[in-house]
């Protein structure tokens, strides 16, 4: 986000990746179902993509639902009408997400601050009503039914049968690891440092000679592509692409997961998505109004705990091991 939020400091890349692998292995073991674990990873992807915008570039986008919904509809339509396979459909969703993000991003970044937010909000609403209207394609209010979940096939031979929820989880987990590693690589590259420079002081970044608009559009497209993949995976998971995929509430949910997990921490996005999906799953049975609690947590995190869950854990870790201080060498930006 910005201002008093210090530059994100995180563990070294191998440590962080090891942490992700450990989480991916542990998730299905501690959770009651592989489907729930898969849902967490899907939303963690969406939150991670949102984090690239909010946490690293300082752009608060209410348009993430557009890319999520377009990825879901796009992949579903490609699979239903053109009989595309798993990887082709996911790639298609990424391309759709990136193109929509190019359109939305290129227009929205012409304005800053509150007007930027309002633009993403307007586009989000337009996408929703467009999806509602184009019911021939999207199924309108009923959603798009009978979305397939293709198997991994090589020359017509089924290599991995993804109908089994555990297999599908393993596939999504692998994909998550790849995308996480890629996002981390991007963030810790000169490109990522430039994004942070834009977040901290865009005028200064521009004065140094960076074409900040160019960087912002690129990060938007990256975010859109990842969110599109998340949407496609979600449609495959549910065998269904509901209209709610593309509504404003979806954008808000993705934002809330990102913030509660920790803005400016990719691993935080996994924590945020995990916490909220599990909380929703456990509490929605016991107490359907659990969103109230979510609202309260959101306020508390924004006002008191800017680092979110990740920041809280990092703080705890520091207190437990007072001897170890961060040397400048390990002070990489996450």
């Amino acid at each position, binding site marked *: *986000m*910005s*201002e008093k939020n210090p530059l994100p400091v995180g563990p070294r890349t191998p440590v962080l990746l090891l942490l992700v692998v450990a989480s991916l292995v542990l998730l299905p073991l501690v959770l009651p179902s592989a489907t729930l674990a898969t849902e967490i990873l899907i939303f963690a992807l969406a939150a991670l993509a949102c984090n690239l915008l909010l946490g690293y570039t*300082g752009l*608060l986008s209410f348009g993430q639902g557009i890319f999520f919904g377009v990825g879901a509809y796009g992949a579903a339509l490609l699979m239903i009408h053109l009989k595309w396979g798993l990887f082709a459909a996911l790639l298609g969703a990424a391309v759709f997400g990136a193109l929509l993000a190019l359109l939305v991003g290129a*227009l929205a970044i*012409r*304005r800053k*601050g*509150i*007007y930027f*937010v*309002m*633009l993403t*909000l*307007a*586009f989000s*609403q*337009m996408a929703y*009503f*467009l999806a*509602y*209207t184009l019911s021939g394609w999207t199924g309108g209010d009923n959603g798009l039914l009978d979305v397939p979940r293709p198997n991994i096939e090589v020359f017509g031979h089924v290599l991995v049968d993804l109908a089994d929820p555990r297999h599908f989880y393993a596939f999504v987990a692998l994909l998550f690891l790849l995308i996480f590693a890629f996002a981390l690589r991007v963030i810790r590259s000169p490109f990522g440092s430039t994004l942070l420079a834009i977040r901290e002081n865009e005028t200064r970044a521009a004065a140094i000679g960076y074409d900040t608009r160019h960087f912002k559009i690129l990060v938007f497209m990256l975010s859109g592509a990842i969110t599109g993949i998340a949407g496609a995976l979600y449609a495959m998971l549910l065998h269904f692409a509901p209209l709610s995929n593309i509504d*404003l*509430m979806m954008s*808000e949910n993705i*934002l*809330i997961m990102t*913030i509660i997990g920790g803005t400016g921490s990719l691993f935080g996005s996994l924590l945020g998505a995990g916490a909220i999906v599990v909380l929703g799953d456990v509490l929605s049975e016991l107490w*359907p*109004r659990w*969103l*109230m609690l*979510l*609202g*309260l*947590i*959101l*306020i508390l995190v*924004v*006002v008191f705990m800017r680092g979110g869950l990740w920041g809280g854990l990092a703080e705890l870790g520091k207190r437990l091991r007072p001897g170890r201080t961060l040397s400048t060498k390990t002070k990489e930006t996450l």
Partner: protein
Amino acid sequence: MLELYLFQLLNGLGLGMIYFLIAVGLTIIFGLLNFVNFAHGAFFLLGAYLCYTAVALTGNFWLALLIAPLVVAALAWAVERLLIKRIYHLPHTFQILVTLGIALIIQEASVLIWGPVGKNIAVPPELRGVVILGDFIYPYYRLFLIGFAALIGLALWLLLERTRFGALVRAGSESTETVSLLGTNIFRLFSLTFALGVGLAGVAGVLFAPLRGAQPFVGPEILGIAFVVVVIGGMGSFGGALVGGLLVGVVQSMMTSLWPQGASLMIYGAMAAVILVRPYGLFGRA
């Protein structure tokens, strides 16, 4: 055919006046406090539900029209003192997120109190029936709505333009620092203005209730429309909120029978276009 259009136009004006009341509250808060209130739609919702309860308890719509907005304003005042005043100095991003949290809490609390199914509120007995002018028939309540909202609008204009409080609000919109240096308790002014702006959303909620009832999940939709109106009219502009509100109300009403989603597409498209082409709105100052 002509009667139908006139009917839709009048409906649109009524709806537009409600949108005006919501948007003008939002715009005053933004103008003076430079604060983005994403909980505005939720306070509107609360106004409608409190109207339901007040009517259920007293059986009197007029009492509800007086009490419900006051309760909404009092609640807003308390929320401002407890929470919002601590986040004025934060960037808009944070304000949006905190008020989004407040909106979620209000919405879910409303469902908790009043249940997930909407409540119907009867039109007060004095305003039942219709006006008949030749072939043209129009419900009394909708006419009352236009007149009453106009009256509130006028009172608000007088308050802002002709009283000391209004002068302070207008001066504060120019420079809070100067007003503060001249010896005004700026925090009291902020609290009052926030309560006033949110109270207007409460009034709109009460007036809306006999038309569509109190629906638990209407908050985000209303908030979206309020932002459309505020953006089209220009952030911080009183006249802009009026014209923008009427414009959006009439467009929506005219298109309800033809293509309601098309109306939404149009108004959000217009909002995006205005921000891109003329970000200070049609009536705002550059």
